[in-house]
């Protein structure tokens, strides 16, 4: 308390000032353009354009989870997109270090926009598999489903009832879980999806986004 009254100050100057300098200068530079070209399906110009936009938005070269949630929530103003954004963040953040850098970003986009159907399905499976153990349990699916329905918000027609997500999960499992063991593995998932024509057709929709 004496410190507050400015009485005890002269002695404690040195300690705290050094720590504060380090935090603000974390930065990330991406790998070279050629390497990224090799890793993704984008052309050089597309990569340049993507990087310019990315750098404009995130001058430090990194996106942390909070920023990501804010950005993604802007697209869904009626509902709460934070939970789904969290799952999405984990899907993009491949090395699980809590930040997305440009490589993660662009590799993820490459898969989504220029990948083959199998790759896209793999990516989707990776998204649903929250703990990345290779299979989707009912709880994981329910979490994902609830987060998607949360994005709809309150004002929907017809209104979202409380058991809508779990019904949807049951339908999903009925369709995907071949051996009825309560989990969906990647092979079951890919196999079932490839047999479904609607899903395959819809995969083409987002190809010319960039």
């Amino acid at each position, binding site marked *: 308390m004496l410190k507050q009254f400015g009485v005890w100050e002269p002695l404690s100057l040195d300690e705290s000032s050094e720590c504060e300098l380090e935090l603000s200068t974390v930065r990330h530079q991406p790998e070279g353009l050629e390497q990224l070209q090799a890793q993704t399906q984008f052309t050089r110009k597309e990569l340049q354009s993507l990087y310019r936009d990315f750098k404009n938005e995130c001058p430090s070269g990194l996106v942390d989870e909070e920023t990501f949630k804010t950005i993604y929530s802007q697209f869904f103003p009626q509902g709460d997109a934070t939970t789904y954004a969290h799952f999405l963040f984990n899907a993009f953040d491949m090395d699980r270090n809590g930040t997305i850098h440009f490589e993660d970003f662009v590799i993820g986009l490459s898969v989504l926009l220029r990948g083959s159907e199998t790759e896209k399905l793999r990516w989707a499976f990776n998204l649903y598999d929250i703990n990345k153990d290779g299979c989707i349990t009912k709880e994981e699916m329910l979490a994902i489903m609830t987060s998607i329905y949360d994005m709809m918000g309150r004002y929907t027609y017809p209104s979202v009832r409380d058991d809508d997500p779990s019904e949807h999960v049951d339908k999903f499992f009925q369709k995907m879980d071949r051996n009825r063991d309560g989990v969906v593995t990647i092979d079951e998932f890919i196999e079932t999806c490839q047999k479904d024509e609607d899903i395959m057709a819809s995969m083409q929709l*987002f190809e010319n986004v960039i």
Partner: protein
Amino acid sequence: MAAGVATWMPFARAAAVGWLPLAQQTMPKPPVDKTSRSDEILFVNVSGLRFQTWKNTLDRYPDTLLGSSEKEFFYNEETQEYFFDRDPEMFRHILNFFRTGKLHYPRHECIQAFEEELAFYGIIPEIIGDCCMEEYRDRKKENQERLAEDTEAENAGDAPLPPDATLRDKLWRAFENPHTSTMALVFYYVTGFFIAVSVIANVVETVPCRPLKGSVKDLPCGEKFSVAFSCLDTACVLIFSCEYLMRLYAAPSRCDFARSVMSVIDVVAILPFYIGLVMPENEEVSGAFVTLRVFRVFRIFKFSRHSQGLRILGCTLQACASELGFLLFSLTMAVIIFATVMFYAEKGTKGTTFSSIPASFWYTIVTMTTLGYGDMVPDSIAGKIFGSICSLSGVLVIALPVPVIVSNFARIYHQNQRADKMRAQQKVRQARIRMAKKGATNAFLQHKEDGGLQGGDSDSTALCVKNRSAFEHQHHHLLQCLEKTTNHEFTDEVTYSEVCMMDSVGFRTSRSTSLSSQQGATTTCCSRRSKRRAIRLANSTVSVSRGSVQELATLHITKTPVGTQYPQSRSNLNARTEDLKLNCDDYTAAIISIPTPPANTPDESLPNSPAIPGILRNSRSSTYNTQETVKISSL
């Protein structure tokens, strides 16, 4: 949409792939994007300073000039760039907005220039970022205040009234601006004198005079010379009442006047007298009557009409109302706290003056304002300790809001100083404008006299022609076209009034009966029309004050003595005069390009002609446009 959101849109759409396996219905088709996706660098040349940017950057904001196809109008094929003839320094900020999504306000720039640039490029000022928003708002408010002062100064105007001002207008003008006529000045000083006399009388009548012969007690002067004082009082009240009634009569809006502060003060100053007349000489009631006499002191507030400083003080207090409120509130809080503490601290002491908490309020206030009368003093040690804390905190609490009040006073005082300076500057400025305009019209009339475009001697025309620029040629040609169209000619003021005198005598009797039955406005009587046109010209110009009609409308259209044309068919004549009016309004507005803000007054003081107002209004709306775009600087 913010740049950020636009950037992330492709990402959000891509992430939607994650919903596909879960979808219960088929997905809708995506929108087809026909624009080419490849990005290119655009060159933008702003007054010689060359900027380059990606096309995508500009496309982020499609509802601005640069983001839409509107910029194609500025594309220069030869140099393959977009050329804007605007301020290059400002353009830097505009382009930064596109790049970063945040608009910053440069502090060293004039706010009006900045707003004009924003308007040109189609950017609304409201998206200025938080970092600069406060500065922008302050400057904008300052600017608006200054403009309001300007218009007020012009309105209030020391300029003379239009000739048809009623007695009411004259009276009101005399009251509001005493230095406009000697009568008003005399009235001003007389009322000031009587206010002073009244206040001094109120003060003196309570002073003890020598007692009457035979009695010992000192009498207040009021009772000794009661007749004299009551005569004085009556006289003053009569004068004040007269003044109030005259002001009420003269006020343009009686409701507003009755509600204004000064009128309330006037009423309160004279009311006690009248109430005293009405009230019976009752013992109980006279007590209340005595209280009413206190209100006579309000007469001193009437001085605020005479003193600018008092008005400023009043303004300041008004402006600082919230600070004063805060001061009062915090003082009250502190008073209650300390009074309670002192009361309980002194409770034990025998014979203490701190008999109750409300009684302690008095001690607390006296101590906090460092007065310290000493009528109530704490005895116990606890009481003394708390008493000292009380006085220390009192100084602080009172000192805090004072700088705010002081700075507000300074601001308002400077505004007033500025208003006075403005007035002086306005006079000079308008004198200059008058001279310039006269020069232009004289040039045209001179040109006509010399034979001008009509031919005449080749020698004289050659001489004349050399001295004029291409611009003047075109202008004169235009004026001549107008003359030919309307079959009237331009003259100057002197000739016009002479002609008018002649016409009014000659034409009134024969014309008025036949044509006055037509739409009331299209009279052919020169004088009537001249009067109306004078007003209409004054109203339809874009300048503000009614009083400046003499300064601005130096071009009157005279009626040539083409008496043979009058017996023509009425519709024809009417059409021509309507045509005439239309051209007249457009013309004068185009010529008169004083860069003052668009007027408010024209709308109110529309002339009473029901038939033509539509035309006039249309022409007025076009006059606003022409005023902005046609800035003929030679005038």
